[in-house]
């Protein structure tokens, strides 16, 4: 009887020891994630600098990185092997002891891949393609503890923040004290898993383990204490009260207050740029879309003669990943109701192409004025990588009687070209309000949703041959394979009932106009479909692919045999084919180049559907 108790208590201690290790690991992971985020942000900035933007006319004879004019004879620039952009001599990085070089962005891209350990995750994904790319065993274990216990001890994956936004360490201590309560369920987890594992590792004749089990009495426990106190990593169980606060401190530094906001939690969990992060919107329920927005988005509103200006400032905090739009004031607005000279204005923002209610922010309503002062800050939590794909739409509305809304004007700003680090761009600025873009202009704003794909060029031969193939050496490689996993889509133009029976068609047009076509299964009744379907285009060589174009189209399956409805399309590669949309595609175009230049590695892409 006495022995049973001691065994139990030891197991409890075990759990606590392991949990402590898991928390320490979590702290280490958080630092690592923060570091990785910084690296990626840095890379993203380099990309933005080089991106051919909407505002800047792309000039063929300028450096793709620094936009410096290239000469006809001197400093003519050269094409980077990685991204196929022409860059000036300043924007090249020569590789160690060679004459080979890459442009600054391609060099940094590789650098980041090394420093973030991305190379490892990619390699690992080859063996475990179905499992998450980044998840650690520790995070999983912690999660399973919490799932079993149904007590949220700590947030499963705190976002990568190192600010010391302590939220009451004493509270955390209390929670730690409550571990005892759910140890039982954890015990069950251990038990079931260990019995399962025993079958697998029966060949392992670890005799000592049995002895150890028998010797797990109080004395053993005492000796552990002795030993552990000499180590700074192991947790001294008996002196836990003294040492725990130190461990907790480091943990608490990592747990920012963002968790207090339940709405943002979802964003927090997906702080890594995995496809799931891109598609966190996919979890949203269609019924959440606010009626009013749906009305206004469907064109169910009145138009005023747009006039006036709006003053606001945009700021982005890289540390917290928050985009802040400070709406200051408007002047000379049109009257919402011209006859009555009435105007109750408010401001609404979206980060296009997301037009869902989750992406909507509104100011309060000012009564009876055409020169309202708002002084309100609207906030978004966005990853830097996501930011580059978004347009900020700021619109002004009048709230009339019977909640009839009148459109008073809007401003749309592409964030891809916005320099968030330049302090001058953070100042308040007046923007003239414009009328809603005409249908013709709609092609400028991609609003048919986004498609997430993962692509890889599988290339059996060695790297040297690949280089040759890149350089255009005539080397046919009929064994090349383009693998494409169509993960999912969101923000698609849905049916009136808010659903879709969608599928994807992939068409690879080779230089000889030969077309390879593939089709995904239908995802039924989903507004944000997740197909997870892979397309494999066989028998293509990299040089062929460079001149090929890949067209991905998303369709809504016809119900009664009528023709399927085209929801949107995205095109990759072969520039002549990208009609008018080069600026828009620059991001995905870069990613596509990455796919072509890094065979056997998966690249995630988010494509804007037109």
């Amino acid at each position: 009887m006495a022995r049973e108790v001691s065994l139990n208590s030891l197991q409890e201690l075990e759990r606590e020891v392991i949990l402590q290790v898991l928390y320490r690991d979590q702290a280490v992971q958080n630092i690592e994630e923060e570091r990785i985020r910084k690296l990626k942000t840095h890379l993203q900035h380099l990309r933005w600098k080089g991106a051919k933007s909407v505002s800047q006319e792309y000039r063929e004879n300028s450096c793709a990185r620094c936009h410096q004019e290239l000469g006809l004879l001197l400093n003519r620039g050269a094409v980077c092997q990685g991204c196929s952009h022409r860059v000036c001599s300043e924007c090249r990085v020569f590789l160690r002891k060679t004459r080979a070089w890459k442009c600054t962005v391609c060099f940094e891209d590789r650098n980041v891949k090394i420093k973030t350990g991305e190379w490892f995750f990619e390699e690992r994904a080859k063996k475990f393609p179905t499992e998450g790319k980044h998840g650690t065993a520790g995070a999983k274990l912690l999660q399973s503890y919490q799932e079993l216990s149904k007590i949220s001890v700590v947030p499963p994956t705190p976002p990568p923040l190192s600010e010391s936004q302590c939220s009451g360490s004493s509270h955390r201590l209390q929670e730690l004290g409550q571990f005892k309560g759910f140890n039982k369920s954890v015990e069950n987890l251990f038990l079931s898993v260990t019995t399962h594992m025993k079958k697998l590792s029966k060949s392992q004749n670890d005799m000592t383990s049995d002895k150890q089990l028998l010797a797990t009495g109080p004395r053993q426990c005492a000796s552990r204490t002795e030993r552990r106190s000499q180590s700074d990593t192991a947790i001294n169980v008996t002196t836990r009260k003294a040492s725990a606060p130190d461990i907790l401190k480091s943990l608490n530094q990592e747990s920012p207050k963002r968790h207090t906001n339940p709405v943002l939690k979802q964003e927090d969990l997906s702080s890594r740029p995995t496809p799931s992060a891109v598609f966190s919107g996919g979890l949203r329920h269609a019924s959440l879309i606010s009626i009013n927005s749906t009305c206004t988005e469907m064109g169910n509103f009145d138009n005023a003669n747009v006039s006036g200006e709006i003053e606001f400032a945009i700021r982005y905090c890289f540390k917290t990943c928050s985009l802040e739009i400070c709406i200051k004031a408007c002047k000379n607005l049109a009257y919402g109701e011209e006859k009555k000279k009435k105007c109750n204005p408010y401001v609404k923002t979206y980060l296009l192409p997301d037009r869902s209610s989750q992406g909507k922010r509104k100011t309060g309503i000012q009564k009876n004025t055409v020169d309202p002062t708002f002084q309100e800050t609207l906030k978004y939590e966005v990853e830097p990588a996501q930011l580059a794909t978004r347009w900020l739409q700021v619109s002004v509305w009048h709230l009339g009687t019977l909640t009839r809304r009148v459109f008073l004007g809007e401003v749309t700003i592409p964030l891809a070209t916005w320099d968030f680090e330049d302090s001058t761009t953070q100042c308040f600025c007046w923007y003239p309000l414009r009328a809603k873009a005409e249908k013709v202009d709609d092609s400028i704003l991609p609003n048919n949703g986004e498609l997430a794909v993962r692509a890889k060029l599988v290339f059996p031969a060695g790297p040297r041959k690949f280089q040759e193939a890149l350089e255009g050496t005539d080397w046919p490689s009929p064994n090349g394979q383009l693998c494409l996993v169509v993960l999912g889509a969101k923000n698609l133009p849905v049916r009136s009932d808010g659903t879709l029976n969608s599928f994807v068609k992939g068409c690879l047009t080779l230089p000889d106009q030969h077309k390879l076509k593939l089709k995904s299964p239908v995802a039924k009744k989903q507004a944000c479909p997740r197909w997870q379907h892979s397309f494999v285009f066989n028998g293509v060589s990299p040089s062929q692919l460079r001149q090929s174009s890949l067209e991905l189209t998303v369709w809504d399956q016809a119900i009664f045999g009528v023709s399927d409805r085209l929801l949107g399309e995205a095109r990759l590669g072969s520039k002549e084919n990208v009609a008018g949309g080069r600026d828009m595609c620059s991001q995905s175009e870069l990613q596509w180049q990455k796919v072509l230049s890094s065979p056997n590695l998966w690249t995630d892409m988010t494509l804007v559907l037109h």
Partner: protein
Amino acid sequence: MASATDSRYGQKESSDQNFDYMFKILIIGNSSVGKTSFLFRYADDSFTPAFVSTVGIDFKVKTIYRNDKRIKLQIWDTAGQERYRTITTAYYRGAMGFILMYDITNEESFNAVQDWSTQIKTYSWDNAQVLLVGNKCDMEDERVVSSERGRQLADHLGFEFFEASAKDNINVKQTFERLVDVICEKMSESLDTADPAVTGAKQGPQLTDQQAPPHQDCAC
């Protein structure tokens, strides 16, 4: 004393972002072969003869300077006991390199190497780098596994081989540094498709090469 060291470690771990890469390394092997001692010797340069069985998992962090790079190592020490196997194998997937350890005075632990190697193949990524280490080489009198057998088995499994002693601090640092180098080589290789020069890859000796690894057996 315990709390003093704890707080110091807390600061060290939470503030230090000053490194180029982070590698995760896992030490595995039968119970009582000296995994924890090996890690303590490397990370803290300390040694305690008393045997305390590791509970599940533990880790230590050490930042080293190697190949002109600051590399942060998160070294996971695993429990050898079978009843923790579930937890420990869960960590295989995140490890870039392994130290597979046996005790030269314990035949049993040597015989289990093959099984441990199978576990790595099952639970880890395809390019897992493994170093086979025969620990306790200071205890020459009680030796039951000869260096030659250890080396033969390592060759057979395609691992590099060291004999080491956590107690006398023989080959401990060398083992970790070699593993780091091998992981660096793998890293360059995996990115090689673009260009081999950036990371200074030495198109390095394959692990299966017979004469490549510097066998630094201890002299005792």
